[in-house]
Structures are given as C-alpha cells and as structure tokens.
C-alpha cells in the first residue's frame, strides 16, 4: 500500500534496465561501484562455473564409466551416492560455508555438486545401455579387456555423456547465483544480491540478463562441440 501510495516503481522500465546495462558494461552514466565492471563480474563467475563444472566432469565421467562397467565399484558406491542424491544442492549451502568458508571456494563447491550428479548418472546410463551386440562384434574381431573399454564402451557412451554435460552445465549456471550469495565481493550472483540490498531492481535485472546471455552462449558452444563429436549420430544433434 505504502509502495503504491508513494509511487515507487519496484519494476523498472526496459529503458531503465537498458541504461543500467550500458553503465554496467561501459560506465559513464552513474559512475558508481558497478559502472564498467561487467568483465570483472562475468570473469569471476565464469571461473567458478567452469572450475566447478570441469571438476564435476573430471570426477563424474571416469567414476560413471567405472560404476557402469565394474560391478564391484557399483556395489561399493551406489548406496552412498543414491542417498546423497535427493538432497537439494541449496541445502548444502550452510555446510559448504563451514567447509570452505565465506568465499569463492564455497561457490565452486556448490556448482560442482549441482553439475556432478547429472554428469555421473548419465555416464552410468550410457555405459549400461551399450548394445550387447557391439561387444560381441568387437570380441570376435579380437578386441578385449582395456581395449574394449577404450574402443567400444567410451565411444558408445558418448551421446549419454554429452547429455549429462549439457544438463550439468545448465545446473552450474543456476547454482552460481546461489554460490555467490555467500558473501563474495565479485560475480554476477553477488551483483544481483547487491542490487537487492540496495533496492536497485534495474541492477538485479541486469545481472539476470547477463547470466542468461552468458549461459546461453556457453550452452551453444557445448552444442557445437556435441554436434562435432557426435556427427555419426543424427539423433544426438542438438
């Protein structure tokens, strides 16, 4: 009521957002703490997104291949992983601050957690769903053991692995905002939080737009890579 009476605009006009974006990118309008800082924040966020995402891929893919292929590893790890999986990543926020303190490492950890499960589960699924005939064909052509793994299991699982990477990448960009709410001074998530604290909705929306555009552009890069690596499979082109 008070808001309506005082005529305060909580939702800025597109023009206000455009001005803010211009200032955020090049400065020269408001000349405050956010003017011309887009690259600082974008690079800080991307470092955390890709730190966490690449870590998730580096652990999730090999682990997924092992869990999918080796019954012993599956029996060993599957119960633990299945129990941890339903816990929402945001629920880890307080604990991650205890583990890693207030700062970027906590954000990287959350991004890692968010990207890890889709990558892991899709890799496991990929390995488990390789057509058995391909193993027979490879075996009769003299392929066995570790060569079978490298020459049949890995390429045959690639479509599912890429699917996991793409999903995980999406989650990574979602979680960066949550991760950067934990008191880091830079990053697009912190810009959004600052905008909220300072009651500057134009800044909030600017942060949202930049995250959206950056996430989209990076997703297209993954799709391009996906289409090149999976050029043998028309149904897996994005």
């Amino acid at each position, binding site marked *: 009521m008070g808001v309506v009476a005082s005529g305060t605009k909580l939702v800025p006009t597109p023009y206000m957002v455009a001005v803010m974006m211009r200032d955020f990118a090049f400065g020269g309008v408001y000349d405050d703490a956010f003017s011309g800082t887009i690259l600082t924040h974008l690079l800080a966020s991307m470092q955390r997104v890709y730190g966490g995402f690449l870590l998730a891929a580096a652990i999730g893919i090999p682990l997924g291949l092992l869990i999918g292929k080796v019954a012993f590893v599956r029996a060993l790890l599957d119960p633990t992983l299945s129990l941890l999986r339903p816990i929402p990543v945001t629920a880890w926020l307080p604990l991650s601050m205890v583990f890693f303190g207030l700062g970027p490492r906590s954000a990287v950890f959350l991004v890692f957690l968010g990207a890890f499960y889709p990558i892991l589960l899709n890799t496991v699924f990929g390995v488990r769903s390789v*057509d058995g*005939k*391909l193993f*027979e*064909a*490879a*075996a*009769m*052509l*003299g*392929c066995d053991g570790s*060569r079978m793994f490298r*020459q*049949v299991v890995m*390429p*045959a699982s*690639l479509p599912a692995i890429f699917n996991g990477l793409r999903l995980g990448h999406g989650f990574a960009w979602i979680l960066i905002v949550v991760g950067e709410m934990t008191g880091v001074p830079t990053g697009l998530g912190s810009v959004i939080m600052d905008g909220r604290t300072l009651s500057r909705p134009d800044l909030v929306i600017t942060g949202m737009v930049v995250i959206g555009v950056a996430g989209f552009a990076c997703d297209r890069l993954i799709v391009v890579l996906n289409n090149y690596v999976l*050029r*043998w*499979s*028309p149904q897996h082109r994005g």
Partner: protein
Amino acid sequence: MADRRPFLHVRDVGKTFQIGSERVDALHHVDLTIDKGEFVCLIGASGCGKSTLLRIIAGFETPSYGDVRVYDAPITGPGSDRGMVFQDYALFPWMTVRNNIAFGPRQKSLSSAEIRSSTEKYLEMVGLAKFADRYPYQLSGGMKQRAAIARVLANEAGILLMDEPFGALDALTREQLQDELLEIWARTQVTILFVTHSVEEATLLADRVVVMTAGPGRIESDNRVSLTRPRDVSAPDFNAVRRNLTEKLTSHVSRRRLKSVA
C-alpha cells in the same frame, strides 16, 4: 597332403536354458562337421536352435555339454578365426565404413600400411570404396551388410557365421547380395555357415543344407545339394531340390501339429 582332421567339428553339443521354472532344451545332442571351404546352410522353423548353435560356434555362448573344435582345438570364446555377420549388422556407429573394416586388423599388431591395404582390398571387394568415409547411418541396409561382411573378411576369419544376414533386406537387394556373397566365397575360399529360414535361399547358396527341428532342437537331416553353379532358381532341377527340402522342413512341423490335434 590335405589335413584329415575335420575343419569345424560340433561334437555332441547341447544347450538348455532356464526360463523361469521351465527348462528349455534349445539344442539336443547336435553333431555336425564342416569341411574347409564348404558353404553350409542351416534351416529350420523358429525355435529350432539354429541361431543358438551359431552363437555357440561363435563362442558367444557356452554349450551345456559337448564342445566345438576347429582342427581339433576346442574353442573357448569369441575368436578372430570365426567372424559373425549379424542380421542387424552391429556396425560401430561412431566409425566410418573404412574404420569399421579396419577394426579387426587394428587389434593385431600390424603396420599401418598393412592395415590400409587390407582395408582397401575388402572395401573394393564389397563395392564400398566410394562410400568408405560414410557413417553407418548414411548407408542403406544392403550397404551396411556389405560393410559387415567386409569387416569379418578383413579380419582374416576363416569361418563366416551368418545369422539370417539378408532377412531384413528387400527382395531385390537380397538377390544382389546373395550373388555377391557367392562371388566372395569363390574368391576367398572362406568357409560359410549360414542360418536362414528361406528354403530357396538355402538351395541357391549351399553345398549342404542342414535341416533342424524344434522341441528339442536337433538336426533332422543333412542334405547335399549337387546342383551346378551358377544356379538358376527357375530351373526344374532347382525346383525339385527345393520341394524336397521344403517337405523335409514341413513334414516334421505338420506331424507335430497332427499329434497335438489328436
């Protein structure tokens, strides 16, 4: 002097499957010898165990009793001396035709020049030289099966095990591939064991037609086809052989049907 040991010897092989609480006798005391260079067709109604027998010879499945020997050496698993051609091709979808054919040679420690020359030779033999850089999804069914045949030939497999390889193809392509297979067989002198449910196909291709029956799966009769090659499917003597084989194939089936009616 010729080697007097049987080339491929299926010795008293049986296979029982446990499906739920039921035991199914898929193969029952099967004996079969095949000479080097022979073209043998296995025909029979579905469920007679012909595919199971082929998979046991390939080493994909182990028999419940008995064994399979190549020159008296029992087989213990899949091996590059026996190459399987599957009905649904089982080409590696992430490899081009050329790399599919080179897959077997690459498993051995051959020089890259040797791998290349053998790959090109078999690409040429099956008429796929122009399509060497295509992926399997870019090929027709007939071309895929040609690639699959070249893949086992390039692996220097002495025995080709073919499980209804032309079953999924249209009639025209099938005829063409039958001709090509006979040509390849004459050129390479490979031994072929070919599973089909078409009496005509067996009569056209085989030196010997082995008729199998179901329940339990066993060999009903072993028939030498002495028609001269190339064979003409419209010739009277071809027809006589085909009719004779059809009778052998169906007599058992109709006998069983009568029994179950009575």
